[in-house]
């Protein structure tokens, strides 16, 4: 074999302070040789891309270290003897992980800056299957003072220790006067203490001369949600885990009860209303709450709907419903 002339002259590299020193993987076993190898000290810089990183390592190796098989052989012997491979492998794994983290971090910075590049796409796809976490939209609920969405207050009370429903009320210019009932409702909403430590959703309640209770979350995708029970469904999804019912086996039951509430609110005659109440009683049977022993959004829906229909008195309710109402009142506090 013949010796190759090094391409770069050998000199001391002044390293910037932003780098940190890593133990030389290959020479760590033999402290004597590691000190003697000088410039080949395992200084590792964190580069923006892996390829750049590896190429620079290669070049430095080739530049500063003449391959000495004897030394290498001795090192391997040493390593085998000390059985240190596991720890090295672990360290390498850790290093690779750190590099990966750095890469995603850089990718994020690029994305934020609006720099478009193939690498960015690569990293986001790699990250978590393209799932993006978007902060929850503030929602707007338009309600007529004659159809007060009591469910908001019921949820606010029921979720007191779980989730903050932060309601701000406004009066739209189409409403000259909102009436005493709505004012009382506003006052009650304001009374519920706000706990900022809990996860929360901001709700803007606007008293407006509109036909239905409607909910708007995003102005760009103007898809209003109509009806109080549907607002309850929405809040049930974004609210605390205890009230999310989609995954529960009672999902269908809860939806059914909410649908009955929807129909109940649309009934125009007392007779039809009583018929709906009877349906509700059938669903409740001897259970503690609608759909089991736990309070759910179905109870919120039924409770607030019954408040909205003063025509239904205690006489129209069965003993089971009356008992339920008492239980629910403890939670909703209306």
């Amino acid at each position, binding site marked *: 074999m013949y010796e190759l002339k090094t391409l770069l002259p050998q000199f001391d590299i002044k390293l910037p302070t932003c780098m940190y020193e890593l133990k030389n993987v290959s020479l760590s076993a033999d402290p004597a040789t590691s000190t003697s190898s000088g410039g080949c000290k395992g200084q590792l810089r964190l580069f923006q891309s892996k390829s750049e990183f590896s190429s620079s390592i290669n070049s430095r190796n080739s530049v500063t270290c003449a391959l000495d098989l004897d030394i290498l052989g001795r090192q391997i012997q040493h390593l085998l003897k000390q059985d240190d491979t596991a720890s090295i492998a672990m360290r390498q794994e850790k290093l690779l992980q750190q590099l990966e983290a750095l890469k995603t971090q850089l990718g994020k910075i690029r994305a934020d800056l*609006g720099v478009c590049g193939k690498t960015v796409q690569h990293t986001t796809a790699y990250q978590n299957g393209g799932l993006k976490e978007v902060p929850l939209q503030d929602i*707007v609920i*338009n309600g007529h003072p004659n159809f007060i969405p009591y469910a908001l207050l019921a949820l606010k009370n029921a979720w007191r220790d779980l989730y903050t429903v932060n309601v701000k009320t*406004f*009066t*739209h*210019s*189409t409403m*000259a006067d909102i009436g005493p009932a709505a004012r009382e409702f506003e006052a009650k909403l304001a009374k519920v203490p706000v706990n900022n430590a809990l996860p929360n959703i901001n709700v*803007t309640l*606007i008293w*407006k001369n509109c036909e239905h209770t409607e909910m*708007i979350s*995003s*102005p*760009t995708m*103007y898809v209003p949600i109509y009806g109080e029970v549907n607002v309850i469904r929405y809040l049930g999804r974004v609210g605390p885990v205890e009230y999310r019912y989609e995954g529960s086996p009672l999902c269908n039951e809860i939806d059914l009860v909410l649908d009955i509430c929807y129909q109940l609110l649309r009934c125009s005659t007392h007779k039809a209303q009583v018929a709906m109440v009877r349906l509700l009683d059938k669903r409740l049977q001897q259970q503690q709450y609608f759909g089991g022993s736990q309070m759910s959004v179905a109870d919120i829906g039924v409770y607030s709907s019954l408040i909205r229909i003063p025509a239904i008195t205690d006489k129209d309710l069965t003993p089971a419903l009356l008992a339920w109402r008492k239980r629910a009142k403890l939670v909703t506090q209306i």
Partner: protein
Amino acid sequence: MESGAICVHSNMVEDKENVANGEQVSKKGAKKLAKAAKKAEQKAETATAIAANNAAGDSAEDSALGRYGLSEMIQSKDKRSERNFVAVHELSSHLEKGLLWVRGRVHTSRSKGKQCFLILRQQSSTVQCILAVGDIISKQMVKFAGNIPKESIIDIQAKPVSVPNKIESCTEQTLELCVEQIFVISQAKAQLPLQIEDASRPENADDDGLNIRVNQDTRLDNRVLDLRTPANQAIFRLEAGVCRLFRDILTEQGFTEIHTPKIISAASEGGANVFTVSYFKDSAYLAQSPQLYKQMAIAADFDKVYTVGAVFRAEDSNTHRHLTEFVGLDLEMAFKYHYHEVLHTIGNTFTAIFKGLRDNYSREIESVGQQYKVDAFKFLEPPLILQFSEGVAMLREAGVETGDEEDLSTPNEKLLGRLVKAKYDTDFYILDKFPLAIRPFYTMPDPSNSTYSNSYDMFMRGEEILSGAQRIHDPEYLIERAKHHGIDTTKIAAYIESFRYGCPPHAGGGIGMERVVMLYLGLDNIRKTSMFPRDPKRLTP
């Protein structure tokens, strides 16, 4: 019968007056004078009648002589207090109560054979008048009425009668006036530079009727005529309402109205866009904003002040929303601990103005709406307050890239207005906590986040109408901020000096009256809400 009595009576009054004057000379002389006067009067009357006859080309005897004609110039000779004048919009309460007098303009008049229909206009109200040849009215009289030029001012004596079919072309739809006497008080030129009818025609794009429009410059050149349209009458009555409400609401809250000088020695903001006027041997500037003086009034312990006055901007911008002279409604207020005290005061003032307009000016809003089709102004009570960062987030969600510390561009401003409208259904909202970098040096930075400031903008229909902030009231800090902005502190020494003797923390803002009216009514041009607008290309009328 009644009218005849009045005529006799008025003649007697004249006679008496003549006698009274004559007594100083002699009884004989007086009699002579009276006779002469009477003769002269009769002569004049016959002369006008003959003239009318000649014009008509009809020499037949006129039975209605003296019931019509050109009135002599009113020089306040007689009081004529026996003539009971009634406003057109009050006519419905005088139905079947006999004869009455009305003064108004000839809106249109057309005679057809033995009849003449004349629409009388009084400001925004119109009523149909009818003259038909009969016992009282002669052929010549009908002809005379038909030839009165449009826009002339006339006095008529007439009897209101209810009509079976609604008159669609008039504001008084249930009645018409049967004329018995008609006199021209002030005659208009026969040729008008623009027709009121054309100027007040509704601006519907898909109108298949007459499509004659009067363009903006013709309107402004003949503003006196243009202002007579019902829409313009309503606009300026509403504008007066905005000023009145602004004054009333703030006065009620303990504000004091102040008047600030308009001729100033140094440019208050920047210096590029000020008008220079010669001031004896020196030159001076026209005030761009009363801000400095408002702040000095606060430093002088007036606590809460407002001012209504002309503001001048020498900006050569020919847009739909810039004027070189406009009326500024400015307010400044000292607060205790947080500038939101002021923000809420201003916001609530706006809400109160909007409510006042909605409740007391519905007639005006409606008549503007008849010509310019726009949606009613919507607002929330209390006003909606969004953070600047929330606004930026809404824009980003809509796919607009805008920086955190970047000012809203005009298209972004409008888009944000549309987004807010879609979500909250309000045409008025407040944006709070603007980035410090885009605000003037005297703006107080946000104590919790130095990229933001204690400043706010208010928007109507997506256009900025008010820009305000907490001002720095500490002279040392003010100097520091001015230096940071690279402003020569020697030039604003007087401003800084006014805070040296103790000044309460304060905040405020100012609005342009014309812009507020324009946006409230949803009009497309600020010149429509300035009575005699001044822009880079217009100094007259």
